[in-house]
């Protein structure tokens, strides 16, 4: 738990600064919105692309996300979560809504889906090449960790998180028994947790 919190702190190293930006956005400060957009555009856009698998739609979604940030930032409460968690949850929900509403689920879950989505990314501060380099290196490490998770488990994690499938839907799509899907999902997250803990020193 402690190790994971430490990792998350590293992932969201500027949580205080970002919280301040959200408070300023809540007061309709356009400069703050611009700064937050620059910090998160790559992370959130890439998350959108990995879910809707269409760059034009992902750009529309990114715009929608930041309009919502502009409208809802005054209600952001740091005690309920980090800006990172707030923004990524909001973005994923919107993207999943999009693919659900457009019946994207006709596509089968394949190993290619997994390979396309497991690639590095972290929010980077473009004004600081050093920070960007460190973030990229850390992202690369997370990518390595994810790829080291057994493929069967990784596929289930990706199908749930990036494709928005429930466990029952994954079982139906893949023909894997529901109990096995549940078991692989649990094993995959625990494996990820253990591997992240093992990388603590390097992260």
């Amino acid at each position, binding site marked *: *738990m402690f190790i*994971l919190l430490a990792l998350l702190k590293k992932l969201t190293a500027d949580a205080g600064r970002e919280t301040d930006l959200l408070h300023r956005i809540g007061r309709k400060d356009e400069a703050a919105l611009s700064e937050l957009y620059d910090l998160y555009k790559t992370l959130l856009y890439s998350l959108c692309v990995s879910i809707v698998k269409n760059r034009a739609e992902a750009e529309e979604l990114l*715009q929608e996300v930041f309009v919502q940030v502009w409208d809802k930032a005054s209600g952001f409460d740091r005690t*309920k979560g980090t800006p990172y968690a707030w923004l990524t949850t909001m973005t994923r929900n919107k993207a999943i809504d999009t693919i659900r509403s457009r019946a994207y689920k006709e596509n089968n879950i394949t190993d290619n889906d997994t390979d396309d989505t497991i690639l590095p*990314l972290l929010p980077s501060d473009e004004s600081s090449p050093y920070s960007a380099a460190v973030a990229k290196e850390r992202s690369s490490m*997370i990518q390595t960790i994810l790829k080291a998770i057994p493929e069967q488990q990784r596929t289930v994690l990706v199908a749930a998180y990036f494709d928005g499938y429930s466990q029952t839907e994954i079982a139906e799509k893949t023909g894997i028994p529901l109990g096995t899907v549940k078991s692989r999902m649990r094993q995959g997250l625990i494996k990820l947790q253990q591997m992240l803990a093992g990388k603590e020193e390097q992260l």
Partner: protein
Amino acid sequence: MMNQERFEELCSAYALGAIEPDELKELEQELKNQRPEQLNTLREILNTAQVLPASAEQLTPADSVKDKLFTRIKAEGTPASGEANVTQIPASSSTAPWVRLAAVLLAVISLVLVYFTLNLADERSELQETVQIQRLELLNLEERLLATERYLDIIGSRDTYLVSMDGLDPSPSGFGRIYFDPESRSALVQLAGLPVTPSDKDYQLWVIRDGTPVSAGVFDVADDRFSFYQIDQFVEADLAGVDAIAVTLEPAGGMPEPTGDMFLLGTPSS
């Protein structure tokens, strides 16, 4: 109580947004028991899943996205779909007036429908987020309620000792209390008026017997109001022979013996 493997399965599905409605109810029901180990498991799994967004292929959106965003922000109050102007719909001068009117009406109706459809999608997304936030709030409240009940058990025990600690030089307005229940060997520590713990430090509680301090716990004070901490298996089974109890500020994680400034000090008889 469900077995740990089943509980982890439910938490994993929840963290990945893949849980079925009946299993969500099962998870919520289980969490009503407020077992600390289960809450820790849930937190660990939620935190692990938070790493996933950072695993997508790195792509940069077009600069025009930001321009469009700010154009839209500046025009806030005007729905995006309202930017279209119905008067711009081309109409041939030879078209009959009623056809032009019908076309304009059709366009207006279409825009209204598009506007409401977009709004409904937004509202659905917002409602889902609200439900998610409220579930986490509920977990938080239930956890606090359970902690309060545990605190009351300690304070309310017939044999509970109370030791008060006064603030010393670094923070004279600070004070602390320790409620110790010898029967359960549980202690409740109340701290107030202490400076917020620096990121590289922790407050450490010491029980001093025969001049030898023994660590009894490490605390992270998030604000200067009342903070409560529970210690299970308190280091001393009997406070009667204890010389003093103190709180010092130490490097994060605590030290084997006190090295930092002493903030609070009290004796069992005080």
